[in-house]
Protein backbone atom coordinates (compact mmCIF):
# COMPACT_ATOMS: atom_id res chain seq x y z
CA UNK A 1 0.00 0.00 0.00
CA UNK A 2 1.96 3.06 -1.17
CA UNK A 3 -0.16 5.48 0.84
CA UNK A 4 1.01 6.35 4.32
CA UNK A 5 -1.29 3.91 6.12
CA UNK A 6 -0.77 0.42 7.53
CA UNK A 7 -2.49 -2.65 8.96
CA UNK A 8 -0.82 -5.03 11.39
CA UNK A 9 -2.48 -8.42 11.73
CA UNK A 10 -0.37 -9.44 14.69
CA UNK A 11 -1.72 -6.98 17.19
CA UNK A 12 -0.99 -3.53 18.48
CA UNK A 13 2.56 -4.55 19.47
CA UNK A 14 4.94 -5.07 16.55
CA UNK A 15 8.64 -5.62 16.21
CA UNK A 16 10.73 -2.49 15.58
CA UNK A 17 11.88 -3.73 12.17
CA UNK A 18 8.24 -3.96 11.02
CA UNK A 19 7.57 -0.45 12.30
CA UNK A 20 10.46 0.80 10.24
CA UNK A 21 9.67 -1.15 7.07
CA UNK A 22 5.97 -0.29 7.04
CA UNK A 23 5.82 3.20 8.53
CA UNK A 24 9.40 4.33 7.91
CA UNK A 25 10.10 5.36 11.51
CA UNK A 26 13.14 3.99 13.36
CA UNK A 27 13.75 4.21 17.09
CA UNK A 28 17.11 5.87 17.69
CA UNK A 29 18.75 7.30 20.85
CA UNK A 30 17.47 10.76 19.87
CA UNK A 31 13.89 9.57 19.32
CA UNK A 32 11.67 8.20 16.57
CA UNK A 33 13.31 9.19 13.31
CA UNK A 34 12.44 9.17 9.64
CA UNK A 35 14.82 10.73 7.16
CA UNK A 36 15.98 14.00 8.76
CA UNK A 37 13.07 14.28 11.18
CA UNK A 38 13.09 12.97 14.77
CA UNK A 39 10.26 13.01 17.28
CA UNK A 40 11.10 13.02 20.98
CA UNK A 41 9.99 9.94 22.92
CA UNK A 42 9.31 11.03 26.51
CA UNK A 43 8.57 7.50 27.80
CA UNK A 44 10.47 4.79 25.95
CA UNK A 45 9.14 2.08 28.24
CA UNK A 46 5.60 2.91 27.14
CA UNK A 47 6.61 2.74 23.49
CA UNK A 48 8.78 -0.38 23.62
CA UNK A 49 8.44 -3.35 25.93
CA UNK A 50 9.50 -6.97 25.54
CA UNK A 51 11.09 -5.99 22.26
CA UNK A 52 7.79 -4.82 20.74
CA UNK A 53 6.68 -1.35 19.67
CA UNK A 54 3.20 -0.40 20.86
CA UNK A 55 1.50 1.02 17.78
CA UNK A 56 -1.03 2.92 19.91
CA UNK A 57 1.78 4.86 21.62
CA UNK A 58 3.52 5.28 18.27
CA UNK A 59 0.32 6.80 16.88
CA UNK A 60 0.11 9.29 19.75
CA UNK A 61 3.71 10.37 19.22
CA UNK A 62 3.32 10.76 15.47
CA UNK A 63 -0.22 12.21 15.53
CA UNK A 64 -1.54 9.24 13.59
CA UNK A 65 -4.99 7.75 14.30
CA UNK A 66 -4.89 4.11 15.40
CA UNK A 67 -7.76 1.62 15.68
CA UNK A 68 -7.53 -1.82 17.24
CA UNK A 69 -9.87 -4.76 16.85
CA UNK A 70 -9.35 -6.12 20.35
CA UNK A 71 -10.67 -9.59 19.59
CA UNK A 72 -8.08 -10.25 16.89
CA UNK A 73 -5.48 -7.65 17.74
CA UNK A 74 -5.57 -6.38 14.18
CA UNK A 75 -4.46 -2.77 14.21
CA UNK A 76 -4.83 -0.05 11.60
CA UNK A 77 -2.78 3.13 11.41
CA UNK A 78 -4.28 6.02 9.55
CA UNK A 79 -2.66 8.76 7.53
CA UNK A 80 -1.03 11.66 9.38
CA UNK A 81 -3.72 13.97 10.69
CA UNK A 82 -1.64 16.95 9.59
CA UNK A 83 -2.10 16.08 5.92
CA UNK A 84 -5.85 15.98 6.33
CA UNK A 85 -6.04 19.12 8.45
CA UNK A 86 -3.86 20.99 6.01
CA UNK A 87 -6.17 19.94 3.19
CA UNK A 88 -9.15 21.24 5.10
CA UNK A 89 -7.69 24.42 6.61
CA UNK A 90 -5.03 25.48 4.13
CA UNK A 91 -6.86 24.14 1.07
CA UNK A 92 -3.86 22.07 -0.08
CA UNK A 93 -4.83 18.84 -1.80
CA UNK A 94 -3.08 15.87 -0.18
CA UNK A 95 -1.50 13.47 -2.63
CA UNK A 96 -2.58 9.84 -2.83
CA UNK A 97 -1.94 6.79 -4.98
CA UNK A 98 -4.56 4.27 -6.09
CA UNK A 99 -4.71 1.47 -8.66
CA UNK A 100 -6.89 1.52 -11.76
CA UNK A 101 -8.88 -1.50 -12.96
CA UNK A 102 -5.74 -3.00 -14.55
CA UNK A 103 -3.72 -2.63 -11.35
CA UNK A 104 -1.66 0.30 -12.61
CA UNK A 105 -1.06 2.83 -9.88
CA UNK A 106 -1.84 6.52 -10.35
CA UNK A 107 -1.14 9.50 -8.12
CA UNK A 108 -2.92 12.81 -7.94
CA UNK A 109 0.50 14.41 -8.36
CA UNK A 110 0.91 12.69 -11.75
CA UNK A 111 -1.46 15.34 -13.07
CA UNK A 112 0.08 18.37 -11.37
CA UNK A 113 0.17 21.49 -13.58
CA UNK A 114 -3.39 20.74 -14.71
CA UNK A 115 -6.71 21.60 -13.13
CA UNK A 116 -8.13 18.42 -11.64
CA UNK A 117 -11.67 17.24 -10.99
CA UNK A 118 -11.63 14.59 -8.27
CA UNK A 119 -14.88 12.62 -8.19
CA UNK A 120 -15.50 10.13 -5.40
CA UNK A 121 -18.28 7.78 -6.40
CA UNK A 122 -19.19 4.18 -5.80
CA UNK A 123 -20.73 1.06 -7.25
CA UNK A 124 -22.95 0.48 -4.23
Amino acid at each position, binding site marked *: MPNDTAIFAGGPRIDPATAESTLGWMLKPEGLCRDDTCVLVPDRDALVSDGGVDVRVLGELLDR*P*VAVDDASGTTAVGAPRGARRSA*LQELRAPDFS*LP*DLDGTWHSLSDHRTK*KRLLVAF*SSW
Partner: protein
Amino acid sequence: MTYPVLLDADHVVTELYAISNVPTVVLIDADDTIVQPNWNAYATDTFKDFTGVDSGRQLDAIRTWVRDGTPLVDEDTAREAVGDLTPDEEQAKLLWRIALHHRDAGDDDAAARCWDRAAELAPHDWTIRRAMLPLRGRDPFGDEFFTLAAEFQQAGRPYHGISDR
Protein backbone atom coordinates in the same frame (compact mmCIF):
# COMPACT_ATOMS: atom_id res chain seq x y z
CA MET B 1 -10.66 13.27 -23.29
CA THR B 2 -9.56 10.43 -21.02
CA TYR B 3 -9.28 10.19 -17.26
CA PRO B 4 -8.18 7.47 -14.86
CA VAL B 5 -10.79 5.54 -12.85
CA LEU B 6 -9.22 4.39 -9.60
CA LEU B 7 -10.26 1.88 -6.95
CA ASP B 8 -10.10 2.93 -3.30
CA ALA B 9 -11.02 -0.29 -1.49
CA ASP B 10 -9.33 0.83 1.74
CA HIS B 11 -11.05 4.23 1.63
CA VAL B 12 -7.77 6.10 1.77
CA VAL B 13 -9.18 9.16 0.02
CA THR B 14 -12.24 9.30 2.24
CA GLU B 15 -9.90 9.59 5.22
CA LEU B 16 -7.52 12.14 3.64
CA TYR B 17 -10.34 14.39 2.40
CA ALA B 18 -12.89 13.68 5.18
CA ILE B 19 -15.42 12.35 2.70
CA SER B 20 -18.62 11.03 4.25
CA ASN B 21 -20.89 10.54 1.25
CA VAL B 22 -20.87 10.14 -2.51
CA PRO B 23 -20.82 11.63 -4.96
CA THR B 24 -18.27 14.03 -3.56
CA VAL B 25 -16.42 16.27 -5.98
CA VAL B 26 -13.27 18.30 -5.28
CA LEU B 27 -11.90 20.93 -7.66
CA ILE B 28 -8.12 21.22 -7.47
CA ASP B 29 -6.11 23.91 -9.21
CA ALA B 30 -2.86 23.29 -11.09
CA ASP B 31 -0.84 24.33 -8.01
CA ASP B 32 -2.63 21.82 -5.72
CA THR B 33 -4.93 24.44 -4.19
CA ILE B 34 -8.39 23.12 -3.39
CA VAL B 35 -10.70 25.74 -4.87
CA GLN B 36 -13.89 23.79 -4.21
CA PRO B 37 -13.70 21.37 -1.27
CA ASN B 38 -15.96 18.36 -0.83
CA TRP B 39 -19.06 19.14 -2.83
CA ASN B 40 -22.17 17.06 -3.34
CA ALA B 41 -22.24 17.41 -7.14
CA TYR B 42 -23.73 15.23 -9.86
CA ALA B 43 -22.86 14.59 -13.50
CA THR B 44 -26.46 13.74 -14.45
CA ASP B 45 -30.01 14.18 -13.17
CA THR B 46 -30.41 10.44 -12.56
CA PHE B 47 -30.98 11.03 -8.85
CA LYS B 48 -32.71 14.41 -9.11
CA ASP B 49 -36.06 13.10 -7.88
CA PHE B 50 -34.34 11.76 -4.78
CA THR B 51 -31.85 14.58 -4.14
CA GLY B 52 -33.49 17.62 -5.68
CA VAL B 53 -30.09 18.64 -7.06
CA ASP B 54 -29.89 20.20 -10.54
CA SER B 55 -26.75 18.76 -12.12
CA GLY B 56 -26.86 21.21 -15.04
CA ARG B 57 -26.22 24.19 -12.80
CA GLN B 58 -23.34 22.37 -11.12
CA LEU B 59 -21.79 21.35 -14.45
CA ASP B 60 -22.02 24.92 -15.69
CA ALA B 61 -20.17 26.13 -12.60
CA ILE B 62 -17.43 23.54 -13.16
CA ARG B 63 -17.08 24.54 -16.83
CA THR B 64 -16.78 28.20 -15.85
CA TRP B 65 -14.00 27.37 -13.38
CA VAL B 66 -12.18 25.28 -16.00
CA ARG B 67 -12.42 28.02 -18.61
CA ASP B 68 -11.62 31.17 -16.65
CA GLY B 69 -10.74 30.11 -13.10
CA THR B 70 -13.83 31.61 -11.47
CA PRO B 71 -14.16 29.88 -8.09
CA LEU B 72 -17.54 28.57 -7.01
CA VAL B 73 -17.16 29.83 -3.43
CA ASP B 74 -14.92 32.38 -1.75
CA GLU B 75 -11.80 31.22 0.08
CA ASP B 76 -13.20 31.65 3.60
CA THR B 77 -16.21 29.55 2.71
CA ALA B 78 -13.94 26.90 1.22
CA ARG B 79 -11.80 26.77 4.37
CA GLU B 80 -14.79 26.35 6.66
CA ALA B 81 -16.87 24.05 4.50
CA VAL B 82 -15.62 20.58 5.32
CA GLY B 83 -14.77 20.43 9.02
CA ASP B 84 -12.34 17.84 10.30
CA LEU B 85 -13.24 14.26 11.10
CA THR B 86 -14.22 13.66 14.70
CA PRO B 87 -12.20 11.09 16.68
CA ASP B 88 -15.11 8.65 16.30
CA GLU B 89 -15.19 9.18 12.55
CA GLU B 90 -11.44 8.60 12.38
CA GLN B 91 -11.87 5.34 14.29
CA ALA B 92 -14.74 4.29 12.04
CA LYS B 93 -12.70 4.80 8.88
CA LEU B 94 -9.85 2.69 10.26
CA LEU B 95 -12.27 0.00 11.42
CA TRP B 96 -13.59 -0.12 7.85
CA ARG B 97 -10.07 -0.98 6.75
CA ILE B 98 -9.70 -3.68 9.41
CA ALA B 99 -13.08 -5.16 8.46
CA LEU B 100 -11.99 -5.38 4.85
CA HIS B 101 -8.76 -7.05 5.96
CA HIS B 102 -10.78 -9.68 7.86
CA ARG B 103 -13.14 -10.16 4.94
CA ASP B 104 -10.28 -10.66 2.52
CA ALA B 105 -8.85 -13.25 4.94
CA GLY B 106 -12.19 -15.11 4.93
CA ASP B 107 -13.17 -14.17 8.48
CA ASP B 108 -16.67 -12.78 7.93
CA ASP B 109 -17.52 -12.77 11.64
CA ALA B 110 -14.56 -10.58 12.46
CA ALA B 111 -15.38 -8.32 9.53
CA ALA B 112 -18.97 -7.99 10.75
CA ARG B 113 -17.76 -7.13 14.25
CA CYS B 114 -15.60 -4.29 12.93
CA TRP B 115 -18.21 -2.98 10.50
CA ASP B 116 -20.80 -2.92 13.29
CA ARG B 117 -18.45 -0.90 15.48
CA ALA B 118 -17.69 1.47 12.59
CA ALA B 119 -21.40 2.01 11.97
CA GLU B 120 -21.99 2.81 15.65
CA LEU B 121 -19.17 5.36 15.65
CA ALA B 122 -20.14 7.07 12.37
CA PRO B 123 -23.84 6.38 11.87
CA HIS B 124 -24.29 9.00 9.14
CA ASP B 125 -21.20 8.17 7.09
CA TRP B 126 -22.49 6.64 3.87
CA THR B 127 -19.01 5.50 2.86
CA ILE B 128 -19.26 3.12 5.80
CA ARG B 129 -22.88 2.17 6.45
CA ARG B 130 -24.05 2.12 2.87
CA ALA B 131 -20.82 0.79 1.43
CA MET B 132 -20.77 -2.20 3.76
CA LEU B 133 -24.19 -3.51 2.70
CA PRO B 134 -23.22 -5.31 -0.51
CA LEU B 135 -19.95 -6.50 1.02
CA ARG B 136 -22.01 -8.21 3.73
CA GLY B 137 -24.38 -9.75 1.22
CA ARG B 138 -27.17 -7.33 2.07
CA ASP B 139 -29.46 -5.51 -0.32
CA PRO B 140 -28.00 -2.02 -0.94
CA PHE B 141 -31.50 -0.79 -1.81
CA GLY B 142 -33.34 -2.76 0.86
CA ASP B 143 -34.80 -1.87 4.24
CA GLU B 144 -31.41 -0.97 5.68
CA PHE B 145 -30.90 1.64 2.97
CA PHE B 146 -34.20 3.32 3.78
CA THR B 147 -33.49 3.15 7.51
CA LEU B 148 -30.15 4.83 6.92
CA ALA B 149 -31.74 7.45 4.67
CA ALA B 150 -34.40 8.23 7.29
CA GLU B 151 -31.84 8.53 10.08
CA PHE B 152 -29.68 10.74 7.86
CA GLN B 153 -32.63 13.00 7.09
CA GLN B 154 -33.63 13.20 10.76
CA ALA B 155 -30.08 14.17 11.73
CA GLY B 156 -30.17 17.12 9.32
CA ARG B 157 -28.28 15.46 6.47
CA PRO B 158 -24.80 15.84 8.00
CA TYR B 159 -22.08 16.14 5.36
CA HIS B 160 -18.41 17.07 5.46
CA GLY B 161 -18.55 19.67 2.75
CA ILE B 162 -20.78 21.84 0.61
CA SER B 163 -24.17 20.31 0.07
CA ASP B 164 -26.43 21.75 -2.62
CA ARG B 165 -29.41 19.79 -1.35
